């Protein structure tokens, strides 16, 4: 088998060359045209390459970055908290442990659902590394799981983003290594068949690859991920709710929520900040279907790293976060009060749960905001 494929390839490429040789005159003309085109393109490209201001690092030569120092075991944190910033540490080897689980949990008040998770939370544990890091990812599938699971990290360069290397039966463990070549905020998710169901049940999370030198220091960092749930019963219908495949295929979610359940970021679980602090939100969208129109009522994002990439936009009201995508938003809070996080496709917020809160405490600032009468 191993012998067979390359031989076949050989034959194919031989015959291709053969045809080309036959038409060698045409070939050389083509070659000239192509070469000159390439030169023009290159020239254009170099004109464009002005150093861009709104950029937070590049991936060039990431392959060459050497890892050094002690191997780090990635600390597991529960959303909405994230591991500590990488700062200016050198690239190193990082071991990440994730466990696929299937467990019943609360989806809304009085409503339960059989979630499939990474590390028992929706979204799964936030993974935080830097460009050049070499990650050894362990994916365990809990022994009482029914299904096989795997992981596709959008931060990985390689077939299936790791899915191919990690298809793991209940009770087993898969390990694969990858080198982080591109900085950015990336989604990871399970890609086992049928993939829509694995995502719809909650198997997604975020991995942040910080640029060399790290992200700028801020006062507060939080981890939020939007996702939809498709249940047999209507929104808020009590009891254990089963997954509804038809609603999933029709893209008619029963719930659209932040962090795996209705009111996950409300009441005692509100995000908090103090007046004058800068807040950074790592916002992902697991989908499986909807694109989020992420907005914080009463705030303007000072910076948005659009689509989780290296460039930021400034002074943004609402940012689009595609399914299987993410964004980093940053804003300074000037006035105390409760700020409401929503998917501004507003029925989702009003009726299906896509709502959370950030509570800001501190001195009032009448210059910024002041009710007159």
């Amino acid at each position, binding site marked *: 088998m191993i012998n067979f494929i390359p031989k*076949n390839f050989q034959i194919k490429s031989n*015959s291709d060359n053969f045809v080309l040789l036959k038409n060698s005159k045409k070939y050389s003309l083509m070659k000239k045209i192509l070469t000159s085109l390439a030169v023009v393109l290159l020239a254009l490209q170099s004109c464009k390459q002005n150093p861009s201001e709104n950029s937070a690092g590049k991936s060039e030569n990431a392959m060459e970055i050497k890892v050094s120092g002690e191997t780090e075991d990635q600390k597991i944190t529960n959303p909405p908290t994230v591991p500590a910033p990488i700062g200016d540490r050198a690239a190193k080897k990082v071991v990440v442990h994730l466990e696929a689980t299937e467990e019943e949990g609360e989806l809304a008040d009085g409503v339960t659902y059989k979630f499939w998770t990474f590390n028992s939370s929706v979204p799964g544990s936030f993974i935080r590394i830097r460009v050049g890091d070499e990650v050894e990812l362990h994916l365990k599938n809990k022994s009482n799981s*029914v299904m096989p699971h795997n992981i596709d990290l959008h931060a990985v360069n390689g077939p299936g983003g790791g*899915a191919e290397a*990690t*298809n793991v039966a209940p009770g087993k463990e898969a390990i694969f290594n990858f080198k982080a070549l591109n900085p950015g905020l990336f989604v990871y998710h399970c890609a086992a068949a*049928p993939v829509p169901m694995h995502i719809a049940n909650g198997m997604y999370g975020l991995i942040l690859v910080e640029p060399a030198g790290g992200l700028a220091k801020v006062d507060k960092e939080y981890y939020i991920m939007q996702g939809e749930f498709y249940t047999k019963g209507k929104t808020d219908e009590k009891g254990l709710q089963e997954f509804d*495949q038809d609603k999933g*295929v029709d893209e008619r979610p029963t719930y659209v929520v932040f962090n795996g359940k209705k009111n996950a970021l409300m009441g005692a679980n509100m995000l908090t900040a103090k007046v004058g602090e800068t807040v950074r939100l790592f916002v992902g969208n697991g989908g499986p279907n909807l694109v989020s129109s992420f907005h914080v009522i009463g705030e303007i994002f000072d910076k948005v790293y659009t689509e989780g990439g290296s460039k930021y936009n400034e002074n943004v009201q609402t940012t689009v976060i595609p399914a299987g995508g993410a964004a980093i938003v940053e804003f300074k809070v000037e006035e105390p009060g409760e700020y409401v996080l929503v998917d501004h496709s507003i029925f989702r917020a009003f009726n299906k749960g896509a709502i959370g809160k950030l509570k800001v405490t501190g001195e009032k600032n009448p210059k910024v905001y002041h009710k007159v009468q």
Partner: protein
Amino acid sequence: MSKIIKIVLFLGGFFFLMISCENKANETRSETLTTKNFKEESINPEVKMVLIKAGKYQPFYGTDSSLVEVTDFLLDEKPVTNKEYLEFVMKNPKWKRSNVKAVFADDTYLKDWQNDETLPKNANPEAPITFVSWFSAKAYAKSAGKRLPTLDEWEYVAMSDETSQNARNKPTYSSHLINLYNQKEREKNPVKVSKPNYWGVYNMFDLVWEWTDDFNSIMTTSDSRTTEFDDKGLFCAAAGTSTTDVLNYASFMRYAFRSSLKANYTVGNLGFRCAKDLQK
């Protein structure tokens, strides 16, 4: 001249293809020979076998509409139980937990048994055996004078619900199964409590995943979105096909599960049942 070279290259390709097919066939033959060296003491489990009538069916994999023919065969009406497997182990000590070789069963083989000859605490003897490998399931079948069902045979029987032979097109067929599959610890329940299907076969879905003889012959790529299938067992068949029914999530689950297995794996919700050719 150029044509001749082309033809030669072409024929060369075919020649290679044939050779490699032959090699594979030889390899599998020698594998079966080595497994034959292990003689199993015969067992005689009292299990009714159900006659499954021949028919054609549309496999879940493959984009073309070619049907696969399944010939008459006999299938155990239920999965092999704890009690039956214990009997097998007693007669075939090399399949006791402490004797089994890692290449034939990994370290979770019969994991919850109290010792080599005692079922797990609180285990129902009539519940299906789990934590068994493909090798051990095959050995069991052999000692019972049977074999494991092929994937096609198993899936052919799995098309049925309680009332019809082919329930695949019923909208409830898959949705019922995916929610059933999502229930944990079903394997702790005894066999033959739920209703039999059209053929009179019990527990195709509600207790355990089941080994098939060629479990890894057609595999979804572990990355399910490409809709392509590797053909790790059908070495010389055409690859790059996809499923015939993308809405059949229950089938996706079974195929995904099979593709996560290796022959020495033992898993907590994976058992087996036996089949047999019809004697003419």
